[in-house]
């Protein structure tokens, strides 16, 4: 009971945070993907898990020359390690989160010990932190009651294990009617969280502005961009902030108008 209360409080506070804050991110991407992002949550999650997996592998390769140890198995990656779960279920994200956490600790310790060049290490530590945090957010969503039909049904659970790649491949070729039986039941907010995580993926965020309803405005600037700012990026980020605030203002005005109508109707008769 206490756990449920705590869970409810956590859910309410995260919902309120989401809906009382605006976030504008400016991202530099290495290349434009020609393929469209999947629309279903399961495949979106699989896409996301793939991006995190690849990032851990590439970062592991990058730091292997400085940090590689002799007890590693030949094809074992320094940060990703051996893949126990190669799908995108609860356990897969748990594994990604743990590996990112360990890699982050290793990088921090090496930074303190001056073992590796300091060029990009802060940005890489932040990236690992992002993988860890988002993976934990995804796990929190997946474990919620009623979200995963496979988790709640022993028959489906026996047939499908979304922590294995094969199950995802089987799911991918199902007709939409069949797939609906195994698809995650997410509310709109949860879907937005996953979609946004997939959109940002492991790309470099150069500017991030968070505007709170209490009037707080926080802008984070990546070190690389702060060292060599580009006026164009600042201007377009500013434009995006303007549009976002304008939309928010419109929504508030709509609600104020609606509230005025209701109160006008319900106010005591003189």
């Amino acid at each position, binding site marked *: 009971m206490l756990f449920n209360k705590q869970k409810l409080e956590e859910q309410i506070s995260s919902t309120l945070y989401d809906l009382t804050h*605006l976030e*504008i991110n400016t991202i530099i991407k290495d290349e434009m993907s020609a393929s469209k992002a999947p629309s279903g949550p399961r495949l979106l999650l699989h896409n996301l898990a793939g991006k995190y997996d690849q990032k851990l592998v590439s970062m592991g390769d990058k730091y292997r020359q400085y940090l590689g140890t002799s007890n590693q198995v030949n094809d074992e990656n320094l940060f990703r390690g051996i893949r126990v779960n190669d799908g995108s279920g609860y356990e897969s994200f748990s594994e990604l989160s743990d590996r990112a956490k360990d890699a982050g600790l290793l990088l921090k310790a090496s930074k303190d010990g001056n073992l590796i060049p300091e060029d990009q290490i802060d940005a890489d530590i932040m990236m690992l932190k992002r993988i860890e945090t988002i993976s934990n957010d995804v796990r929190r969503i997946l474990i919620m009651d009623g979200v995963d039909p496979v988790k709640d049904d022993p028959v489906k659970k026996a047939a499908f294990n979304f922590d294995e790649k094969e199950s995802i491949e089987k799911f991918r070729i199902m007709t939409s009617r069949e797939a609906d039986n195994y698809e995650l039941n997410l509310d709109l907010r949860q879907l937005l969280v996953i*979609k946004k995580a997939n959109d940002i993926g492991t790309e470099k965020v150069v500017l991030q502005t968070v505007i709170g*309803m209490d009037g707080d405005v926080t802008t984070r600037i990546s070190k690389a961009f702060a060292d060599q700012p580009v006026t*164009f990026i600042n201007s377009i980020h500013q434009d995006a902030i303007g549009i976002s605030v304008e939309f928010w203002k419109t929504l508030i005005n*709509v609600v104020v*108008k*609606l509230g005025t109508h209701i109160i*006008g109707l319900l106010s005591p008769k003189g």
Partner: protein
Amino acid sequence: MKNRYLQAFQAYSELIHSGGIQSIAEGENVFLDIRGNITGDILLFIVPKKKIAADDKDIMELIRSDKTLEHERRVVIESFRQKFKGLSLLPESLVWVLGICFSILYTYWNFDNILTLFSGKWGVSEILSLLPLLLLSVITPLLGKYVGFNLLKPILAFISLMKRLFRLIRNRKVEESPG
């Protein structure tokens, strides 16, 4: 007005198909890709047209040397702004319709009071009755996005249900077709 409804239709149709709204522009060296969702969050991507060695400095140099980018920025921002305006039209229209309904009900329930007000005989109780309005104007901005978001939620849920039904019907036709 007709144009605004067309914008709204386009924005919602895009929202249904991709789960968000998006505007893309192409400069000499880079693409600009802006994506937004119904809570007002925006992701702005700057992507080199050709895959280059992923060095931040090279990408920044590509942006600096792109002569068409300023013009493209204005175009893409304006297009994106129009789409967001389109999105806000639906709740605005809903409130407008609800407002008319409320006004009719209010007039019906308070007809006597309205007559008194017009005759100039109103006192403390009438002024006190305005207090809820004042309270509302303080509280609603704080809850605005939450309520505004929830105002859109049932509409989007309905649209998503329609989309799912459409997909089921379309898929059945494909399965039943010969060959």
